[in-house]
C-alpha cells in the first residue's frame, strides 16, 4: 500500500470512509510534512484539527491548506502583508467554514503575494515561496504557497483565489490542477478583498477528480453574507469520461500576441493533438478584443484595489505607525510602512485611473472593453463548447527575474485575465514538461480550458479525459522531495 500522503485526496477520503485509513493519522502525516516545509509555502501550520475527534465527514478528514487571505477565526490571516502581521480575525470565511464542516480540517495557511497582487509569490512580506521543481525558480502567484504545497505533497489539496490568474498560473507553474470557478459560484465572505468584481476562490489539487470533489463543497446555495454570490445551478458530478467525442474546442487566433515560449507552444499543440485523438474537434476561433484584456484588467483591478485597501488605515486592526503627530500623518505613515512596493504601485495606478480628469479615459474605457471581451466569449461559445489556450506564456521563471519590471511580470497574466473579465470558469491542468528558455531542467506546462458560466462539470469532464491521456507524472511521488 502507498504511504497515505501519496494518495490523492479523493482516494484518501474513500479509505477513511472504508475504515482502512485513520483520519487522525492522515492529519498527523501531513502536519509533520507541512511543519518541515523548506519551500516557505506555509505561513502557519495547525497543531491539530480544529474540531478534533468526531465524525471525519464526507471529505474524510483530509486536511486542507488555505491561502493566507481567507479569514480563519483566531488563526493568523495576513494576506501576505506587513500591515496585517499577526492579525487573527474574529470570524471564518464562509468557504473555509463549509469545507471544515464537510470534513476538511484546516492544515495551515499558505504564502501568497501581498493582497494577491503578483504572479510569483515574491511580493509576500514573509519572503518568497520556492518552486518545488526547481528551488531557484518562482512557483507562480499569487496563490504560490498553495500550489507549491500541493505539488510537493505537503498538503493533499488547497484553496486559493484567482483575480487575474492567481489560481491557474501557479497551478501551471507547479504542475498541479487549478480551477477558477464562475464568478459568484463561491462565497467571497471572509476573503480579504483585492478586486471585488474579479476575486473568486477555487481549488488547487493533485488531479481533476480532487478538484471536482473540493469544488462541490465550496459551491452550493447562495451565501446570505455575500450579496454577489449565486446558487450553483447544477450538482457537481465527479468526472468519468475517457473520451472527448463531440467536444468542440476553439483555439483563439490571438494566441500569437501572448509571447509564448517555444517549449510551451509545442506542449500546447501536442495536447490539442491528444484532444483530437480522443474525438474532439479543434478549430480556430477569434476573441478579437483579447489582446486588450490585459490593459483593461490593469485598470479595473488596481482601481478596485485602491478602494478596497482604503480600509487599512491603522484604526481597527493591523499595523499602526508610532508617533504620528495627527490623524492624517497616522494614515499616510501607517500605509507607507505597512504596504510593499507592488501594493503601493497598484494603489497608485488605481487611484490615478479613478481620479478626476482621468476616470473616463481609463476606468470608463476599461469597463467598456470588459463588455466587449464578454461578448467575444459569448459569440465563441455559440460555436464551441470550450476555449483552449496555454495557461501561462512560459514555464516557471527564476526568482528575481521580473521583480523589478512590473510590465514583464504583468504579461504572465496574458492568457488568464480574459476569463475573470467575462466572469466565466477556467481550469488549468498539467500537460507535460518543457525546458526553460536558456536551458535547465524541464518544468511543468499548463493547459487551460475556459467554458461558459456554470459549465464547471463540462470543464471537469474535458480536463479529466485529457489528464488520463497526458499521463503527467505526479510531482508528489518522488519527482520532487
Amino acid at each position, binding site marked *: 500500500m502507498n504511504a497515505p500522503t501519496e494518495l490523492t485526496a479523493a482516494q484518501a477520503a474513500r479509505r477513511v470512509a472504508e475504515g482502512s485509513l485513520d483520519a487522525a493519522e492522515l492529519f498527523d502525516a501531513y502536519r509533520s510534512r507541512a511543519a518541515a516545509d523548506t519551500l516557505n509555502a506555509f505561513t502557519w501550520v495547525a497543531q491539530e484539527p480544529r474540531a478534533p475527534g468526531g465524525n471525519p465527514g464526507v471529505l474524510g478528514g483530509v486536511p486542507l491548506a488555505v491561502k493566507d487571505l481567507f479569514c480563519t477565526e483566531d488563526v493568523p490571516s495576513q494576506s501576505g502583508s506587513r500591515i496585517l502581521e499577526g492579525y487573527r480575525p*474574529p470570524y471564518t470565511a464562509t468557504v473555509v467554514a463549509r469545507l471544515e464542516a464537510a470534513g476538511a480540517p484546516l492544515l495551515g495557511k499558505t504564502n501568497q503575494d501581498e493582497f494577491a497582487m503578483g504572479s510569483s509569490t515574491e511580493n509576500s512580506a514573509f519572503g518568497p515561496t520556492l518552486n518545488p521543481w526547481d528551488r531557484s525558480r518562482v512557483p507562480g502567484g499569487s496563490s504560490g504557497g498553495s500550489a507549491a504545497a500541493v505539488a510537493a505533497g505537503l498538503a493533499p489539496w488547497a484553496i486559493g483565489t484567482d483575480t487575474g490568474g492567481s489560481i491557474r498560473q501557479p497551478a501551471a507553474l507547479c504542475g498541479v490542477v487549478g480551477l477558477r470557478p464562475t464568478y459568484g459560484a463561491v462565497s467571497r465572505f471572509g476573503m480579504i478583498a483585492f478586486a471585488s468584481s474579479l476575486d473568486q476562490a477555487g481549488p488547487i489539487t493533485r488531479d481533476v477528480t480532487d478538484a471536482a470533489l473540493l469544488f462541490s463543497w465550496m459551491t452550493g446555495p447562495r451565501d446570505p453574507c455575500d450579496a454577489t454570490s449565486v446558487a450553483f445551478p447544477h450538482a457537481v458530478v465527479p468526472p468519468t469520461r475517457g473520451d472527448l467525442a463531440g467536444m468542440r474546442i476553439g483555439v483563439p487566433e490571438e494566441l500569437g500576441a501572448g509571447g509564448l515560449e517555444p517549449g510551451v507552444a509545442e506542449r500546447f499543440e501536442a495536447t490539442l493533438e491528444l484532444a483530437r485523438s480522443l474525438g474532439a474537434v479543434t478549430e480556430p476561433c477569434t476573441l478579437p478584443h483579447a*489582446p486588450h484584456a490585459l490593459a483593461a484588467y490593469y485598470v479595473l483591478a488596481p482601481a478596485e484595489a485602491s478602494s478596497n485597501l482604503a480600509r487599512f488605515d491603522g484604526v481597527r486592526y493591523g499595523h499602526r505607525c508610532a508617533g504620528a*503627530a495627527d490623524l492624517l500623518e497616522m494614515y499616510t505613515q501607517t500605509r507607507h510602512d505597512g504596504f510593499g512596493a507592488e501594493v*503601493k504601485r497598484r494603489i497608485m495606478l488605481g487611484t*490615478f485611473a479613478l481620479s478626476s480628469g482621468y476616470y473616463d479615459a481609463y476606468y470608463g474605457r476599461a469597463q467598456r472593453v470588459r*463588455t466587449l471581451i464578454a461578448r467575444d466569449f459569448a459569440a465563441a461559445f455559440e460555436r464551441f463548447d470550450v476555449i483552449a489556450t496555454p495557461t501561462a506564456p512560459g514555464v516557471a521563471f527564476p526568482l528575481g527575474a521580473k521583480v523589478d519590471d512590473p510590465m514583464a511580470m504583468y504579461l504572465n497574466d496574458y492568457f488568464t485575465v480574459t476569463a475573470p473579465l467575462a466572469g466565466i470558469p477556467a481550469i488549468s491542468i498539467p500537460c507535460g514538461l518543457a525546458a526553460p528558455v536558456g536551458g535547465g531542467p524541464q518544468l511543468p506546462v499548463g493547459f487551460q480550458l475556459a467554458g461558459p458560466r456554470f459549465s464547471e462539470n463540462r470543464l471537469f469532464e474535458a480536463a479529466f479525459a485529457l489528464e488520463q491521456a497526458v499521463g503527467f507524472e505526479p510531482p508528489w511521488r518522488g519527482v520532487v522531495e
Partner: protein
Amino acid sequence: MIDRDQVRYVARLARLELSDEEVDRMAGELTAVLDHIATIAELDLDGVEPTSHVVAVENALRPDEPRPSLPRERALAAAPAVLDDGFAVPSPQA
C-alpha cells in the same frame, strides 16, 4: 505619461506617504504600465455599455431576522489603540 508632481498628488489622494526615492521610481514604473494601457484608447467604444459587474444580481435580500452581532470586545481585540470602548486615534488637529 505621469510625472513626479502627479505621483505626489495621487499619493496624497491615496493617503500614502512616499519617499523621494519612491516617487522617482513610481513615476517611471507607472509610465511604463500606462503606456501599455494606452492601447485601449485605440478602440472604438462608442455605444458600448460599461460592465461593472458580470452577474446580474438584483436586490439580493435575506430574511430580516435579528441575530447576535460581533461582541464589542471581539471587535476591539485587534485594534492598535482602544479608549472608552471605542477605537482610539490621534487628534485630527494636533
